[in-house]
């Protein structure tokens, strides 16, 4: 016991010092009210100094995307700081290119508001709303994936475009955090938001999403992300996904087939085994209504003991190579999956004559 006493005393002193420093910062370091000028005077916020720019904006109902809850590990919350904000921190540089740093792009979660700031925020982010909703339906898709449908309450409708995403608010030991999920429900279903979530062991967002039951209240913000779907019905749509990368593709394909029932489109989707397959029946039904829609699923690790499989086998980029013809065709590709899959598919698409500008994907 005598040996532990000095350790305990030392630890106690450290804790006491930490508490004193925190209290002292709160009481002595008073930045007062700081102004945040948004888009050259379009809107001016007056906020309590000392908090991060991300928190200050959220407090004012401006929802900048952030996948990590402000810990500086996702790099999503980029905005342009025109003046104020201090120097770029080392915790920001891995997420910013040199030209971004030169143009004043910062991670909002790393900028402390200690003085008046002027920032530029894209117009679409200023239109992002906070929604309250309840869980309308939970459907198990595979052993580790669920589809959860939320009925929107306030506001009761969302104007989203295929490919956009929302941020679901999830509880965590450090307080509520937001996690980004692509919207899988089609754009015409304005009263709901449907998400497809794979359970990640230890993941805050996915554990929360998997725990939800019918009737549970939730909060989400959105929609975020660019709209890249061509309005020209002569442009073919090629959707390619793998693993759990399905949600935005489902939104795109159902929205396209509703609006242009004869538009030529493809879905290539790769899973490991038969037990990982989901939405195949729904897409086959959709293909019956749209004769120009082709659905191709591939299993990379097919075990004949799992039963008969009438689809492709091997990785999905191999199926794309096999089925998609090369040529001078107007077409856009939308990719969703892990980066090595994206890279392999991009190589095939390049060989098929796709221009880089015609391929859309999100780095995750």
């Amino acid at each position, binding site marked *: 016991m005598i040996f532990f006493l000095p350790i305990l005393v030392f630890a106690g002193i450290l804790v006491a010092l930490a508490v004193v420093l925190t209290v002292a910062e709160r009481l002595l370091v008073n930045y007062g009210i700081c102004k945040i000028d948004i888009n050259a005077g379009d809107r001016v916020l007056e906020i309590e100094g000392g908090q991060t720019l991300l928190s200050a904006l959220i407090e004012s109902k401006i929802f900048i995307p952030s996948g990590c809850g402000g810990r500086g590990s*996702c790099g999503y919350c980029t905005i342009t700081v025109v003046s104020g904000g201090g120097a770029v921190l*080392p*915790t920001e*540089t891995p*997420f910013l290119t040199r030209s971004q740093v030169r143009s004043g792009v910062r991670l909002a979660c790393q900028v402390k508001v200690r003085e008046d700031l002027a920032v530029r925020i894209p117009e679409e982010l200023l239109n992002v709303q906070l929604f309250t909703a309840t869980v309308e339906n939970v459907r198990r898709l595979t052993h580790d994936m669920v589809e959860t449908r939320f009925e929107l309450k306030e506001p009761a409708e969302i104007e989203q475009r295929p490919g956009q995403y929302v941020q679901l608010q999830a509880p965590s030991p450090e307080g509520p955090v937001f996690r980004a999920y692509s919207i899988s429900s089609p754009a015409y279903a304005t009263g709901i938001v449907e998400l497809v979530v794979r359970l990640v062991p230890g993941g805050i967002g996915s554990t929360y999403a998997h725990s939800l039951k019918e009737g549970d209240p939730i909060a989400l913000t959105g929609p975020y992300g660019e709209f890249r779907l061509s309005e020209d019905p002569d442009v073919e749509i090629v959707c390619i996904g*793998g*693993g759990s990368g399905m949600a935005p593709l489902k939104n795109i394909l159902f929205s396209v087939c509703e609006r242009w029932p004869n538009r030529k489109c493809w879905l290539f989707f790769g899973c490991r085994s038969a037990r990982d397959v989901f939405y195949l029946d729904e897409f086959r039904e959709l293909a019956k209504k749209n004769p120009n829609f082709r659905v191709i699923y591939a299993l990379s690790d097919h075990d004949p003991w799992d039963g008969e499989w009438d689809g492709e086998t091997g990785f999905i980029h191999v199926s794309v190579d096999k089925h998609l013809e090369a040529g001078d065709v107007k077409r856009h590709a939308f990719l969703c999956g*892990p980066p*090595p899959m994206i890279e392999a598919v991009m190589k095939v698409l390049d060989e098929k004559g796709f221009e880089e500008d015609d391929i859309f994907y999100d780095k*995750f």
Partner: protein
Amino acid sequence: MAIITVADVLKMAEDFETKLVDYYTKIAEQTTSDGVKLLADYMGRHRRHLSEALERLGSAEREELYSFPIRYEPLALDYTCLERRELPPDATAAEVLDIAIEIDGCLIDLYRQVLAQDVDQEVKDLFESLVQAEEGDTIELKKIKAMDYF
């Protein structure tokens, strides 16, 4: 005792990254799984975090940083960090990803040994950004694993 500089530590990390690329190449060559091959090829090609971080600095800034002394030599990057992680040819993608995450941890340990010392702010900034890059890589690897594609 010879003076240790930032350049010495970075050389240590650079050598480790080179060895790491060879390590992933070897996995890609030896594996019996197409998925592991695809994955290991990808990880080998995208293992340039140190040079990317240094490229973000101007050349004059870089040269100045290289000459900063480090008081205590960090423990040499433990090469067994790679060698004790020999994988059988039938290793799964999840096993490869778990090891890649542990290896990122080896580099993070090295950089933190410098950050734990009383070093100049510029040095601190560089090593903090290196830690951040490795932590970012770890998150990406975890997400790839979670997608369960390979």
